[in-house]
């Protein structure tokens, strides 16, 4: 029992520290939102990738960066209705 408790505590700690760490009840929506947010953060963080997309779309990098952060707010649309 103590082991199980410790495992839960450790998991909770991980979840608190690393955003996106999953748990048994992770929904598809949470998972996919998280995935998109990670991807967008990676686009923003790699200057070469951001520039690649900026040149492709003909937009300045600063504008594209803002756009990506903006998209991180709700990357895959509204959350689904909760089923009780």
């Amino acid at each position, binding site marked *: 029992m103590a082991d199980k408790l410790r495992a839960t505590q450790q998991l909770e700690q991980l979840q608190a520290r690393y955003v996106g760490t999953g748990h048994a009840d992770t929904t598809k929506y949470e998972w996919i939102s998280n995935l998109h947010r990670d991807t967008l953060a990676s686009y923003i963080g790699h200057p070469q990738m951001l*520039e690649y997309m900026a040149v492709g779309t003909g937009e300045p990098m600063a504008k594209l960066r803002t756009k990506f952060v903006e998209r991180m707010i709700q990357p895959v649309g509204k959350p689904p209705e909760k089923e009780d």
Partner: protein
Amino acid sequence: MSGGSNMFLYSLSIQQPSSITQAILGAFSGKKQQEIVVAQGSRLSLLRPDATQGKVHEVLTHDVFGIIRTLAAFRLAGSSKDYIIVGSDSGRITILEYQPQANKFNRLHLETFGKSGVRRVIPGQYLACDPKGRACLIASVEKNKLVYVLNRNAQAELTISSALEAHKPHCLVFALTALDVGYENPVFAALEVDYNESDQDPTGQAYQEIEKMLVYYELDLGLNHVVRKWADPVDRSANMLFQVPGGADGPSGVLVCAEDCIYYRHVGRLASRVPIPRRRGPTEDPNRKRTIVSGVMHKMRGAFFFLLQSEDGDLFKVTLDYNDDVGVSRIRIKYFDTVPVASSLLILKSGFLFVASETGNHNFYQFEKLGDDDDETEFNSEDFSADPSDSYQPIYFQPRAPENLSLVESMPSMNPLIDCKVANLTDEDAPQIYTICGSGARSTFRILKHGLETTEIVSSELPGVPSAVWTTKLTNGDEYDAYIVLSFTNGTLVLSIGETVEEVTDTGFLSSATTLAVQQLGEDALLQVHPKGIRHIRSDRRVNEWPAPQHRSIVAATTNSRQVVVALSSGEIVYFEMDSDGQLAEYEEKKEMTGTVTCLSLGEVPEGRLRSSFLAVGCDDSTVRILSLDPDSTLESKSVQALTSAPSALCIMSMPDSASESSNSSTLYLHIGLYSGVYLRTVLDTVTGELTDTRTRFLGPKPVKISPVIVQGQPAVLALSSRPWLGYNDNRGQYMLTPLTYPALEWGWTFSSEQCPEGMVGIQGQNLRIFAVEKLTDNLQQETIPLSYTPRKMIKHPEQPLFYVIEGDCNTLSMATKEGLIEKDPANHRDLPAEDFGYSRADGHWASCISVIDPLGKEVLQKIELTENEAAFSIAIVSFSSQDDQLFLCVGTGKNVTIVPRSSTCGYIHIYRFLPNGTIEFVHKTKVDSPPMALLAFQGRLLAGTGTTLRIFDLGLRQLLRKSQAEVAANLIVGLQTQGSRIIISDIQESITYAVFKHADNKIIPFGDDMVPRWTTATTMLDYETTAGGDKFGNFWILRCPKKASEESDEDPAGGHLLHERSYLQGTPNRLELMAHFFTQDIPTSVQRAQLVAGGREAIVWSGFQGTIGLMVPFVSREDVDFFQTLEQQMRTEDAPLAGRDHLIYRGYYVPVKGVVDGDLCERFSLLPRDRKQMIAGELDRSVRDVERKIADMRSRVAY
């Protein structure tokens, strides 16, 4: 370690990335002068602007082997030196200082705060420093913020505290800046959005109601913790923050830039707002809102102003009216000038503006004025409500030619480099690199040539064809040369150097004979060697003549300030030395050589010595002998070196050597030029006279002539063959041999005058030419041809030296639409050059064209603008076998294309016929369902990748005729390669697929694919089985089809067996094997096999998006692989990356590095201190010189 791979490559870069992620300004040397530090890909460079010359010099560049994301400069109170904080992908904060004496970056602190890599919640994206240098905040895009307190200890050393956390979950950061609060507690401002509620609300209402907050974080220095002090909603579209000076200098607070508006905000103060002026004109959409994309604040003499740049590149000058009671009462904004869209803007105290452009050249402007009293309309915030929800009248301005800024220097930048082709169109001995670069109206076609830039000073015609030229001083103490001595076949001409160059006759030189050597001897005498004797001209014009023995003449001579050696036609060598009263004394014995002497060299008298102790003698029996000149062993032979051909020139000189025993000392070298055009450099042992460590290089088919020169205060060697070459030590201390971009010379010598202290003089045919080499850092010279729009692809004509480039810009008005709009309202139109002002933009519009480039004539021969909102995406030249192998240009276009999400009305394939001069003529176009992103000539027909379908077309009279098709890709075909019947298809997302075309069945059958999703950007076939390519994430990889699968694919002419083979794991029956993998950071945009130097081996040349040009050199022997792998391993520990990234993990960023040794890391060996070098060399069981030689050989064998 190698993972069983049997392919090993050595990665080298020949041009570093030229995009600037960020630039910061500071006094990094600790002197008054301001310097610029820029992040270029993985490199950190220090640039020193020269205000007097209006130039920017690169002082240092350091590869940190990590992704530099942000930089900040800070200065501790009372100090005069700025430190650099680097936010990278290492999960660590790095504080660097620049050490001007050693010219290197020194790491002061490295604090780990999280995992490595670019992650959502690991800080490193945003960085802000308190203006008083007391603290810094480093933040991630989401959640995490860490504050470090910076201070100094009793020894005045910089200290850094442990991190203070200011995390907030579900919180996204848009922008971050530090507030100027004087000496109160440091405050940082962030633009944040909390998405917690919107993530829980299925109705979407919470998402609609999300507010963007301006949040102040205060670091309480007394309590040592961070508090979220203030949060206030701002405009939802806010994207940028700028610090407003505080304390005694201003009202403090921040400027919040949002779409179309700029706000002033501060806690407890009234907000104000002013709109961003929009461009006026018939081609501008009056409803298009601008955003600020970069900006800079400048403080001067108690006043301050902002220069903010909109997405069009327009700079606006923003000033604030304020007083102590109400804070800011008014924001004023007016149009300033237009410069390229910048990633960073810097204003220097010396009155310059540095624009680190997002794309294209970085510009250095001088301020002519500050836009203070011009007639530009000024708008102010009094006319506008500060509430973001209130509506307002937009404001407009008319862009105009620059008035306030004048361009003084443009630093060439290849960023973004979109395609590249190595070809030799000029029939020189080495090929050139042809590239398309840039974006929008600033796009260029660039030609890169290996060579050093030369500045011509004089070029004048002479009465005859001289055979040689020398310059000489009059006395030992002279700073500059006084005479130019020209030797003709039957006489000698002496010119004096002064205000004008004119002939002098009373110099004592014998003018009736040809000259073999000229020397300023001893204190104030001159010496002339001619075939019949030696003339020693004393300062009082007395001449002592030493006649050559009867029936013999002098064939070669060498001199220095105290010694003279001549070789006679009989093969004897006569040695003279100057005695204490300035007389030349002949050594009583003559040395008899076995063959005819072709050349001699003495070398300079070393400082503090009486004589040079070695004489090098080159004989026509293909040997070089070293003779001793020491008094007790005069003219005794010390050593012999056998050569492959007779030597044509010799030169003993000492040069700096990074491998020498003690640091920064120099080593004596013997440079040898051969009649066969080969140049050798060997180390001459100062004690034994032994020749060791010979390095050879083929310079050209003509005999090599060598002369010592001085460049940038450093001894260098001018070696002349079919091209002039310069041998010098580059900034890493490595010896480089680089051709000069100058015509071939027959003879060269140093030249020094007041106007040109470090010049060279040479003879080219009947011309005397004086020139100088000013820059040793750039060994690739660029030539530029402007293009119209962002280039997409290019192709070389198979026979003629012409390139065909397709260009296109989205959301840009096409030429035709623009002209139509201007016609409607010509009165309000002003014609401004698009290179500086960009094109008018409009959503959904495309401007696209096909250009014919003549790289030799440096012009655009023809430009065909596409109409009806079509844009070109792919290009190929096909010789259709149905048309008697006639060549046609095929261009794939799309109509009404939107990029995100990808859609289009339809696609077309345009066919153009070639006219004899290389220009093109439209034949017809064929509609296809989606735009073809890849076209390729394939067995006399056209292969086109449209969407996921691969089609084969033949040319018909009215349109293309579809012959065969297959579904071969998962998402979108972006590239095609072929050899024989094999087709390599690259998918945008799913790596490459090998397919075979079965002629009998008329079927394309995929038979091999990859197991890793690679977002392929470029590929090339290395051989029939192997493909090298790059992907969007910055990886370079090599894949190979298993031998068996490859053979099976070609066995059956009908392909029945192949067609019915069972698919494996929902893919093709076979899988490709990974041979090599390497994270290059820069995105490969082209990969090709090419030979870059004459006589060099072939290597893989790849170009990177940010302007990198790199090489992958295959190793020849297993021994070399072991050597370089061990060296790389040692370098990883001994020269750990500066920003704290682990090198091995960095190079294996997405996929573990395989089969590639990082040459850029190995080349840092020469920069290590002596003891570390020795340690590494010891581990490798070699001498330091051996290791350096191997590293240098690896580069010089294939590249520059």
